[in-house]
């Protein structure tokens, strides 16, 4: 699986949404499934999937799928 597929899988599993909903434009708090509780699961899923440790700034900045990709890029996860 490439990183895009891994990312989509992590989002879909953590937020319990269909993979087709995971687009760059999807934003935090724009759907009820991506709320502050799910955000914690998402962070844990991304950390596990890509074997990284996100800091508190990353978590706050992660306001969309696109933003998540930018943040992961800092940890050498390329999309």
């Amino acid at each position, binding site marked *: 699986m490439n990183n895009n597929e891994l990312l989509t899988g992590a989002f879909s599993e953590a937020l319990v949404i269909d993979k087709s909903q995971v687009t760059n434009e999807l934003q935090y708090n724009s759907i009820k499934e991506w709320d502050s*509780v799910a955000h*914690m699961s998402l962070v844990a899923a991304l950390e596990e999937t890509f074997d990284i440790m*996100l*800091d*508190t700034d990353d978590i*706050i900045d992660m306001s969309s799928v696109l933003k998540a990709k930018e943040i992961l890029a800092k940890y050498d996860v390329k999309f």
Partner: protein
Amino acid sequence: MSIQALIDELYLEPVYGLSQQEKDQKILPIINALTLKHEECCEAYGNILKVRNDSSRIADNIADVPFLPVRLFKTNLLSSVRESEQLKVLTSSGTTGQQVSRIVLDKDTSVYQTKTVVKIMQHFLGKDRLPMLIIDHPNVVKNRQSFSARGAGILGMSNFGRSHTYILNDDDMGIDWEKLVSFLEKYSGGPVLLFGFTFMVWKYLIQALEKTGRRINIPNGILIHSGGWKKLVEEAVDNETFKSRLKAATGINKVHNFYGMVEQVGSIFVECEHGHLHAPIFSDVIIRNPLDWSEMPANEQGLVQVVSCLPLSYPGHSLLTEDLGVLLGEDDCPCGKKGRYFSVSGRLPKSEARGCSDTFQENRP
């Protein structure tokens, strides 16, 4: 410049680095802009301003900004945004028979709240997320549609942790030893973040450990706690006692209490190593005479008024609380933080018990 642009600038400043005078210059234009905005967008707030003797809306200093009694949010839903823009309604931690406050958040205010809490806490915890023990039971965050203030507080703090572990049982609030022991085996060698409401930490961690005679050892633990001292004051437990008994039972040296309330998002005043609560750049504190509401000088007890730059969606930028406190100084705390520092000594007699940790009801037979 928009209010948002002015608020955004605050994040570029050090959280505790500006002198009171420099800070006032930064935040007063924001606070004044909020008064105007809420007058325009919240009819009830506008009506309240109309009946004041003072017709000016632009205050010359923070102490002249009009303030609302915090109690008003129990009786009225005060909102400055359309219903379609409401992201969520926070409620305070009222017990049965008490009225709860309702606070309307829109997207911007909610984002600012999270960002601000992170900025402030990073000052004490650093940027790395630490393994985190939560002194509460997991059910407290189960209902995602309506969090209690306690649940919301826990979730807010969860941003600072990883491997979140709730150490109390849902049914009887006893310590889940299996969970606790396996967490400690993994993490107790390094820094660990612990969070809980003051009364819960006292009763269900410190006292529970003392009763069983079991001791745990988390020498690099940092405990953050909040929610009010009322129940502990009734048991004659002060901050010093709390800290020394905590240390004896858990080995934890670093403890930071913080003061804040659901009615004013983002205003959290964290205790430094000298036991003083500090106002960050985003908020301020004024102590008022409970009889005539005049501003009290330092070292005299009065009512705590809190001021915040963040409430965009409801008129909560300047609130008179029912808490009693003392201004301890300005720009000169030995910990090095600039701005005002203070202590909170209790609640105005006759006001309700309403702190997050004060409202846990024990099961009565």
